[in-house]
């Protein structure tokens, strides 16, 4: 028996014994995702138990090195673990920005001390992180950020304001882009700094969106003290780390479009029925749905193709540059069609009869997809310049 087969047998047995039955139930919404933190929000008490059991083996982040609390598993072993979890419908034990965003950045750019201090609490779900990037006057021009970090000897004094900080009101620490130098080009002088959200001078205010309440906050820093040992990378060289993480974020957002339920064609048939030729009775709508489905099929095929090319060692081709742009535009189209198919019920905002405005709020929320994480316009600029080689 190969080592991998042995690993599979042991993993299967361990999961069978340790995964609580409640954690094998399907995730019904965001509230069923466990994000950890000092004051974790839970919808079921077994969430924390399940996270703790997995964290003990480092399996909340199985591919991170063991010395930082991770599982230290090889790629094939990670796949086996995922397969065995899927087999019993085990939920993800922990979902956090620490795992998806800060961790990869620290592993690549952090020093040994920073990794040892910050990675294990992420693995154990003890510290929840948020990301302090966007600022009110910067928008797409992220690098023009103005939050200042002044030298205070062994620490920085941080002053300024961030916006679109997801879960800032619930996070324990923040990884934050600050300006430590004003003299060079705007991309220089940016530093990547970590500090505790419980520090004096930090305050947050949730942002209400056109679609309703949201995880986003405004975050204010008023003479916040941040230890210099929590500066990641060199002072003034934070932009490199920021760009690395932006790529991660874009890939996450471009996945939005993939979420599907019933097909739009089926939904429309329920509402409008067919004409004598068997086609959807609303011919104009039919054309728009067919266009959407065609593009959606071609886009999903493109994501598969790029994946297959990468696996075949061709690297991440130029086609990946279109994912964020095209995926979010498709998602907007799908939501717009949902509204057109839905009619009156889709215009509902509150009340049980309208499912508290699910269709409508999803639609409104989708309008932001092509703004957050790099606007469609910025994505098109990137394609034009980096892929097509068109000049400034």
């Amino acid at each position: 028996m190969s080592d991998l087969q042995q690993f599979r047998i042991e993993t299967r047995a361990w999961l069978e014994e340790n995964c609580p039955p409640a954690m094998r139930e399907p995730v019904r919404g965001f509230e069923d995702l466990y994000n950890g933190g000092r004051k974790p929000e839970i919808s079921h008490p077994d969430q924390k138990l399940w996270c703790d059991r997995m964290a003990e083996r480092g399996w909340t982040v199985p591919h991170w090195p063991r010395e930082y609390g991770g599982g230290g598993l090889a790629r094939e072993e990670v796949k086996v673990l995922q397969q065995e979890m899927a087999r019993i419908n085990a939920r993800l034990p922990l979902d956090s920005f620490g795992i998806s965003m800060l961790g990869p950045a620290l592993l690549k750019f952090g020093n040994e001390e920073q990794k040892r201090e910050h990675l294990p609490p992420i693995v154990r779900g003890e510290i929840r992180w948020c990301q302090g990037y966007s600022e009110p006057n910067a928008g797409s021009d992220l690098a023009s950020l103005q939050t200042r970090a002044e030298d205070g000897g062994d620490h920085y004094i941080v002053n300024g304001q961030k916006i679109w900080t997801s879960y800032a009101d619930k996070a324990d620490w923040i990884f934050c882009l600050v300006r430590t130098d004003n003299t060079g080009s705007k991309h220089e002088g940016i530093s990547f700094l970590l500090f505790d959200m419980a520090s004096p001078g930090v305050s947050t205010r949730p942002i209400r969106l056109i679609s309703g309440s949201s995880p986003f906050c405004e975050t204010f820093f008023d003479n916040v003290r941040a230890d210099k040992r929590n500066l990641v990378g060199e002072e003034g060289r934070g932009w490199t780390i920021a760009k690395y993480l932006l790529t991660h974020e874009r890939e996450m957002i471009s996945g939005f479009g993939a979420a599907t339920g019933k097909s739009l064609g089926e939904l429309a048939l329920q509402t409008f029925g067919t004409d004598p030729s068997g086609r959807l009775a609303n011919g104009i709508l039919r054309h728009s749905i067919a266009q959407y489905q065609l593009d959606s099929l071609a886009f999903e095929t493109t994501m598969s193709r790029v994946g297959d090319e990468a696996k075949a060692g061709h690297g991440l081709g130029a086609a990946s540059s279109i994912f964020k742009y095209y995926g979010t535009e498709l998602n907007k189209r799908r939501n717009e069609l949902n509204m057109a198919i839905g009619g009156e019920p889709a215009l509902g905002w509150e009340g049980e009869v309208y499912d508290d405005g699910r269709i409508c709020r999803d639609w409104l929320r989708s309008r932001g997809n092509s703004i957050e994480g790099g606007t469609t316009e910025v994505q098109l600029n990137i394609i034009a310049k980096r892929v097509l080689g068109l000049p400034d």
Partner: protein
Amino acid sequence: MALVLTEEQLMLRDSAAGLLAEKAGVAQLRALRDTGDELGFSRQVWREIAELGWPGIAIPEEYGGLGYGYAGLGLVLEQVGRNLSPTPLQASVLVGATAVNELGSESQKQMLLPALAAGEQLVSLALQEGAHHAPEHTAMTARADGEGFVLNGTKCLVLDALAADWFVVIARSAGEPGDTAGLSAFLVPAASTGLTLEARSLVDSRGVAALRFSDVRLGADAVMATPGQAWDGLSHCLDIVNIGLASELLGLATEAFERTVAFLQERKQFGRVIGSFQGLQHRAAELFAELELARSIVLRALQAIDDRDPDLPRLASAAKAKLCEVAQRATNEAIQMHGGVGMTDEFDIGFFLKRARVAQHSFGDYNYHLDRFARLGGF
């Protein structure tokens, strides 16, 4: 008629713009929403509007109106669109009064139109039943009962229903859903026994309700037009209504566009005013062209009402379809070009997006009217 505004019309437009911006603008809509006001508009503001005579703009002079025609009402509705004004100008003036005027008997008109023109009473049309506008598929039954009728069924998307004193109700006295024959119209007091209202909350925060009719008994005096033959009058009424909604959408889309252009002229990114980026410039210029086309077709359709143009049905669907398309594009572009700030509830631009979709949907959306435009064009 020349496709220009007269001096009188320009004065009316300016006066509407002034009052609505001050008394019934986005700020008032937001306040009504945030306080959870069920009525959806301010009675006090409505009285001030009524004093200016606007509720009677399109009502014939013999029934106490100003008799300015729909071209006049269209101008007011355009300003309503610009300001997202929460008033019964759509529900009772554009829709309700037109229904009474087109479908009512002489005595019903004499009884009701003067009170509507004075803004003292409100009437709303109860038509839609399912998810989409499909008037010939009306299923609500009107069973003959002596000289009168008994109504049973449900209606949705009844505008400003909680404030209405009367409803014009479309019901089926004969035939099957899908037939245009067999439809009848009734003038029903809001306080009728067996009629219950359920307030609904839509994305545009305007007052709207669903109505349930359980054995609502009506006398012969409630019957409008000839029983079973309401279709032609209803159809004509809906043409007028859709052109009025197109006027509102024109104002709404134009305002969203102008706010966006102003934002483009101010907002800086990458060290430049973002309005200097050619990618945005070209999109703004294209949208400008579409708005000019939209303005022309709305004006033409409004005049066609007053001119009794036989091409009215086709022009009505043209105006509504075009304005659905342009308003959708203008509001979507407004959010995208405003960026993150446009996504926040704190900023006003989202209100335009929200109202646009409800107005687009009401009485037939883009898909419905483009199809009808083609059918009336013979293909």
